[in-house]
Every structure is written in C-alpha cells, then in structure tokens.
C-alpha cells in the first residue's frame, strides 16, 4: 500500500489515484437503532495496529469504492475487493 494498490477492476495503480474514505468494517445502523449505535458508527473507531479494512475509492480510475485490507504497521496489503461485493457479502 501507500505506493501501489491493485484495483480489482483496473490492475496495479499508484496511490495518488485513490481517495481514502475510512473504516470499512462499520455497518450503518438501522434508522431505529439506539443513539449509542449511531454514535459509535459515526464517531468511534477500532483503529487497530495491524489488519484493518478501509474504503479507498479509485477516483482516478473506475470510481469504485474498494475495501482494502491492509496492515497499519507494515503497510502490507492483504486483499482488495470491490466495495459493493463486500457489502453484499457482509449482509448490508
């Protein structure tokens, strides 16, 4: 990461083609969910040192939101998947 991201649609592309949105592990709560659930969704972050899931948008390419699984300490990228596919798999 940091230098190159392998976009599942476009191939290996440089970092500067992407915009980083943030934590991809969070699920948007139901509208009727508790105040706490909404607070946690919008404001609380696990912020792990190690593997994390992050939304990167390929703004300079296919414009897809990608879920980048990477290590916040070594900067190694473990996987990159399409955000919509990830969302469907994870029950959104």
């Amino acid at each position: 990461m940091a230098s190159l991201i392998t976009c599942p649609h476009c191939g290996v592309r440089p970092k500067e083609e992407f915009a980083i949105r943030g934590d991809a592990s969070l699920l948007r709560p139901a509208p009727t969910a508790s105040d706490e659930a909404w607070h946690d969704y919008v404001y609380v972050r696990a912020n792990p040192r190690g593997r994390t899931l992050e939304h990167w948008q390929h703004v300079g390419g296919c414009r897809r939101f990608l879920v980048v699984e990477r290590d916040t300490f070594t900067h190694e990228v473990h996987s990159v998947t399409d955000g919509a596919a990830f969302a469907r798999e994870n029950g959104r």
Partner: protein
Amino acid sequence: MTAYRLTTGGLVDRSRALSFNFDGRPLRGFVGDTLASALIANDQLLVGRSFKYHRPRGIVSAGPSEPNALVTIGPGARSDPNTKATVAELYAGLTARSQNRWPSLGFDIGAVSDLLSLFIGAGFYYKTFMWPAQLWEKLYEPLIRRAAGFGRVVLERDPDTYEKSWAHCDLLVVGGGPTGLMAALTAARAGLRVILADEDFRLGGSLLSETQAIDGAPAHVFADRVVAELQALPNVTLLPRTTVFGWYDDNVFGAVERVQKHVAEPLAKLATERVWRVVARRALLATGAEERPLVFGGNDRPGVMMAGALRTYANRYGVAAGRSVAIFTNGSAGYQAARDLHAKGIAIAAIVDSRAAAEDAAPEGTRVIRSASVVDTKGRRRVSGMVVERSGFEELVACDVVGMSGGWSPVIHLACQRGAKPVWSDQLSAFVAPDVSGRLRLAGSANGIYTLSGCLGDGVAKASVIASELGFKPAQDALPETGEEADPSFTALWYAPGAKSKAFVDFQNDVHAKDLGLALREGFGHVEHAKRYTTSGMATDQGKLSNINAVGILAGMRGVKPADVGTTTFRPFYTPVSFGALAGPARDKHAAPIRKSPLHEWARKNGATFVEAGLWYRSAWFPRAGEKTGRESVDREVLNVRANAGICDVSTLGKIELFGPDAAEFLNRLYCNTLLKLPVGKARYGLMLREDGFVHDDGTVSRLAEEHFLVTTTTAMAGGVMSHMEYCSQVLWPDLKVRFCSVSDQWAQIAIAGPKARGVMQQLVEDDISDEAFPLLAAGAVTLKGGLKARLFRISFSGELAFELAVPAGFGMAVADQLMDVGRAFDICAYGVEALNVLRLEKGLATHAEFDGRVTPDDCGLGRMVSPHKADFIGKHLSSRYGLTAADRMQLVGLKPVDREKDIRAGAHLLREGMKPSTLNDQGWVSSACFSPSLGHHIALGFLKSGRERYGERIVVWDKLRDQEVVAEVCDPVFVDPEKARMKA
C-alpha cells in the same frame, strides 16, 4: 605547493582541459574530474568552514559522505548551495564559492567562537539566553541564526525545468561497482528487465580506483567492458548520475537523475533533474561500504583525509593530495592506500597502526609504528605534521597529509528506511542490514564482503537467486579472474586515546568526543538523545562518516557493546534531493489542473474578468468602458438583471444524471427533504446532510422521467457529492437499482434571469414556455429553434423570473452568442459570479459561505425542509442530538447598517451593544456581505445566537481586525421581494 596533479595516470581526459573558478580564482581541471579532485590538483585543500566553531576544513572524502567540502556552485538564480565538491562533476565554466565564512575563507571572523568552545559545548544554549526574555528574538537568536547555516539561498525563480517518470523492472540494482555490475550482467543475460542506477557520472564504482587486475586487464577496463555489454542489451536501462534516495512500500524506489547538472547552461528542452519512481519486482543493493574516519586529536585539520579517498584521488583522478603522506590505520586498508600512493611516487612519511601486529605489507622502506596512536596534528590551515604517541612517548612526524582508515561499514541505508533496525555483527565490527524482505537483498561490500573477488562472486550469486525466483534461468558463467587479495580485516578503534586537542566525531556539526561525554553525563546517553543533544549526525551528510564512531564512543563510555547502543533511524533521503526535482513540473500555474467552462471563450469574448474558483476559472464580472472598479460593473449587472435580463454561465455546477427503478428511493435517502413523489417534469430544491446532521451541500433535483433524474450540486462540492453518492450506492445500499454518472462536463448551462427573461427565451425555444405551460420549478426537454435538443429548468437563484438552459457542451458558445444577439432587444447583459452573489444575497439564499460544515438546516432557516416523515436519510438520526437542536444555536439573519452609509464586511463578529468583546460575549458572525444596488446600501447575512427571535434588534458588527464597528439592524435574511412575486411572474 603540496597537492598536485600527477604527471600520468588516472581516468581523467588530459587532452580536454576545463577552466573553472573557485572563490574568484580561475583554475583548470580535466574532463573526468570532480570539483574536489580539480581543487586538489590546484592545491586548494581548504574549501570551507565548520558549522559552529568556523574551523578551517578541507576535503575529507571522495564521495557522497563528504562532511566538509560544501560549496555553492553556479551563478545567480542557478546557484546550488551546500553542494559536495566530492560528487560535483567538473564542467567548463563552473563557478564555486566557499561558504560559512566572512570576510574570506582564509580569514573568518566567526572563528572567534572556536576560542569560546569551552563555554559553548553541546547544548549550551538550553542553559542560557533566558534573561531578559525580550532579548532572545532581538539579539541572541539573530546572532545564532547568522552564525549557523551554511550556504546562502537566493530564493529567486529557478530557470531550470524538472520532470518525473515511472519505471518498471524485474531487478533494480543500486550501485554500479564490481558487485552491481556483475549482478546486472548476470540478470540481464538471463533475460530480466534490469535497471542499474549509480550516483556517479561514470559506472564502475570502486573499480575506477582499483589497481588490481581482472581477467588480465585493469579493473576500470573490465568495468567498461561490462558496461558496454549492458548498454547493448535491450532489456537493460543504465542510469548513471542517478541516486536511489528512498525505499518505499511495495518495493517502489525513489531515484533522482541529475540529467544536466554537469553543464553550465542546461538545454531548455531537457529537464535538469528527473525523479524516477522505480517499481521493482526485486532490488539488489550493491551500495558498497564506507571507510570510517578515526577520532583523534586534531583530526579535522585540512589535509586529514580518508585513506581510501587518497587512493581514489591518485588512481582515478591522477592527483596527489600531498607530497608526504602519513597513514593512521587500524586495518589493512591503510596499507593498501600507502602501497598505491607509494607506487605513484608519493612519499609515505609513516604508517601508524593502532594494532600491535599485522600481516599487512607496507611499501618498501616505509616506517610502520605499531600499537601507536595519533594524538594531535600540527599546522595552520594545512597539516604540517602529526604527533604520534606510543608507549607514553610522543613524536612529531612531519607530513602534509594524514590518511586515516578506521575500518568499514556496509552502506545499508536504503534497507533500513522502512522500520527494520540494523543488526550488529561482531565478526564485521559493524552494523549490517537485517533480513528486510525477499524483495530486497544486499550484495558485495554492502553485505559485508570486502574482497574484490568476493564482491564479483556475490553479485553473480544474488542475481542468480533472484533470476531463478522470478522464473528465469541464469547462465553458469565462470567468474572473472582476480589476483591475490589482502585480508581486509581491521580492529575497531572508536577513539584514539590521549587526544591533545579536539577529536572530532561529526566534522560538519563540530561535535567532538568530549561533547558525547557531556551528553552522557547529563543523561543523554541513549543514542537518539545523544544525537539530538549534541547534533551529531544531523548535518547535511546525515552522519555517514560519523554515526558509527559516535555509537562506538557511547558504547565505550557506557561500558556496553555497540549492539546495545544501536543506531539512530535511517530515513529518506539517502543524499539530499532538491525541492525542484521532487516537485517536478507541477508548480506555478501547473500546481493544480485548470478547468474551463465550455463558455469560457464566450465570456472572454465578452470581456469577462476571471477569478479562480477551485479548479475553475469563472467569469467574475464583465466590465464595460468607463467602469473603473469591479463594483461599478457588478452594480450595473445586478440592476440590469432586476430591470431587464441577464445571462450567466453556471456550467461549473456539478451535474449528475441518475437512472433506474430505485433512483427516486436513492435520492430520497440521500437528501433530507422528500423527493419520492417529485412529479416528472418538475425540479425541487434539495438539501443534503452529512451523517452527523450538518449540511453537506444543496442543489436542485429534477425528474426528467419516472426513472430518470438530474441533480445539480454547488461548484465547490461537485466532486465531493459525486463521491458521496457513489459511496452510498456502492457501500450503503448496493441493492438499490440505480445508476448514475457525472455529466458536468457534457452540458453547458446558462442562467437567464430578469423580468424580460421569458421574452428572451421565447426567441430561442420552440416550445411554449409561458407561465402556464412552464411554471416555476418546471423542468424538461425543449427544442431550440434550429432543432437543437436542450434542457430547460425554471429555477431562480436571483429571485427573478429565471430559467436555466442546458445544452450539449459543444453548442454552449453558439447558444450563448445567440442569446446575447436576441437579448439585445431586451437589454440583456452578461453577468458574472459577483453579481450572482449579490443577487442571491439580496434574496437571503445560503451558499457555502453559510454552509461552512458546522450548520444545520434549521440554522439556515431551512428546518422545515427536513422531512419528519421519512424513515431514513443520511443524517437523520444524529440531527436530533441536543447540540444540534439547542435554542441558543446561531441562526441565519439579515443585517442592515443603521447608518445606511456604513458598510458591513464578511468575517466581522456580532456583539450586543455596550458589551465588551470576549469569547463569552461573542454573539455570532457575518458570513456574507455586499453593497445592494437594489436597496442602495450594504446588506449582510450572518449567524446570530437565537437570531430569528431577534429581528429588529440593534447589534454591533465588530471588525476589530480592520478596526471598524458598525451598528446594524437584525432582520429577515430576505431583503428583496419576500413575497416571491417576481420569481413567479
């Protein structure tokens, strides 16, 4: 005369002399010289002054680790301060100036600080200059600043150009010495795409200074043969004059190529420097090893040099740094230097060896003093002798050069830039690279292998492993033949005991051994603390020579091994890289892309004054003859819109077109107001929140067909809203059947506003656009006369009867011209964003001056837009938090100066009359203000605590920054036509 050019030998081209200039002195050198070798040939060893004590300093090394020989090269705006003379390639007309001295290199007033050195040791400044406080900025700091620093920068526009390039390869070899050349050759012959980068202007590395034969030929001839073969191979890119400065994630390397730094006048068509980003499947560091200086009394006197550098100057450049060279060594390298110099006819005054015994062969007739130490040097601006101590006896040995050799440190910088810590090797008495990743390896001297045959062999071996890993078949060629080699061992010596004067560790920053002692005494014994407290290793050479000795000395003082002290952190850049090279061409007007509306030329033709708006240039106003200020033009445009008609380019608005059975549902979730039931053929104002409940952006939503929508965004947020919609669609609601794309660039959009707008439009549009047929907020396809399909919206941002006409971008100019033509009869005028702003301000409409990321819809008087009935939309839940609904929030109000002659300006704050200014008393602020030509006085929009309850109240508009206080009346933000009669006309 002591230093001189040897009569023969060296790889310089003696048939091609070059004239250059140092401190105003015209001098001569040869093609193939560095500035340093040419200076030595001209007996100019003294080239600079040190940082703190302003001691005279000479050339120490023959490469990029040089701490002393920093000069400013080049004239005027092309001057490069702090350039290392040891790597600066000599060219005809080169001008160099010494630094950090006044009035001259020979006589430097600053040297008085050397006399005070007892009082200004490490960290002295933390302990004094505290009283009186005012004197720090006025007296002490300017003195320190003036004394410190090195070169002078002119801060003028750089006449040169820079560029960047990506490169991709199977193997990047860093370093073109024996190891790198063999590695590149092995890999290239096996078919790998190879890039070989070397910082030197000539490939060959240590082979260019080597006297040993390879395959029966001189080493440099062997190097040339390999280079020639590499050059002929199509899968090889050779990058001489290229420094690989950084190793980044994913095996991407940053490198800078000095394309034209070796010419007086760079060609304009070529970049002067080029930054490469090299994506390498594998990389091999063949970066060699650095010879260590020895820390002994008086080791900074000009003429004290690295033994290896003396060899290089003699063998490669054909220059002798002196006529009588003494060597101080702790290993074989000192003897090798002595042998090479002796062979060139240079006298060897003595070899002082810190070891008791050694197998190394001294040149015939040379005196070797074992178990001895150099404790001082003599001479003023040049060494004239050294004091040798052995068994308590001191002896002065006359010499004009002292060559020092303290052993070797592998150059592992790049391998340790990504967090891995160097590992101490007892066997090598050095820090070596840890196992960093299978994608980067080290070979040769960088890997602790110091013999020539070992380096050649390791280069082949490592390249073969890499080739195999990548699926190539390396050939099993025989290794080149080398002669018998000396044992390259040494016995580490961190500090030569008994120093009679300052024994420098870091030459450039003037850190001597006692400074490290003081640091330790004061509790700064950790290697990072010692560095930061003494500044050791923080100079422009980043401690390439000094760091290892500092570690050794700290270890000795603390009674631990160097392994326990560890190193400071290696970070980019390996050697300093210019701002210009890293910035490349993206500067000045190219700093950000330029976007121009499809109507840009139309606006230019009509005399527009343009203004930057994000990436766009927008027309600000259209001055006419006789108008002296922008205000005059803007006032005229506003009045004309209110009286007649005006047209304005609004193409820069974001435009997104959506399709699909769920498009309505999607938009309904995206905006806080209801859109589900928006009828086909209608537009509606839409307000979008962030998930935290604050306003994100606004615009219009038009339903062009049941499953077909067009939304507009503000110019500033076009990209952000598009991205937000993509996030919502792809991540939050991937199952909604909706597709959309930005059509911002596909449509030119023109606002036509004013009481005569319909009259103008009807001239152009085939369709019936009467109020009955095309009422307020109508939206849909129309046909222009002549057949062009367009889109028309009856929306108004001015409060006037208004249309927005969208046509395919390519027709924008023609349509705008046509509008101006047919509009002439209606007294139409073009108006710019300034008039647009005044028109909306008179109507109390909010823009991003109001939507500053901290306001709710209710703050802006748009609270009723937020649907209480919708189950969900972005921002719904968190909108209900206490802080977002509190009664004392600031609300949008209008402001009119009580004295109508006064003006109000944006950015002012609001205070109750008679209250003292304080953060607690702050009542709000002015978000937008202008002169209203319609009303004839200034008006403003602002946010005021509980503002809507306070219409009629007098409030102080407090602009302390511009020393202005105005009393204003709080009022409804709609200043003009609150009944909206004009818009509905």
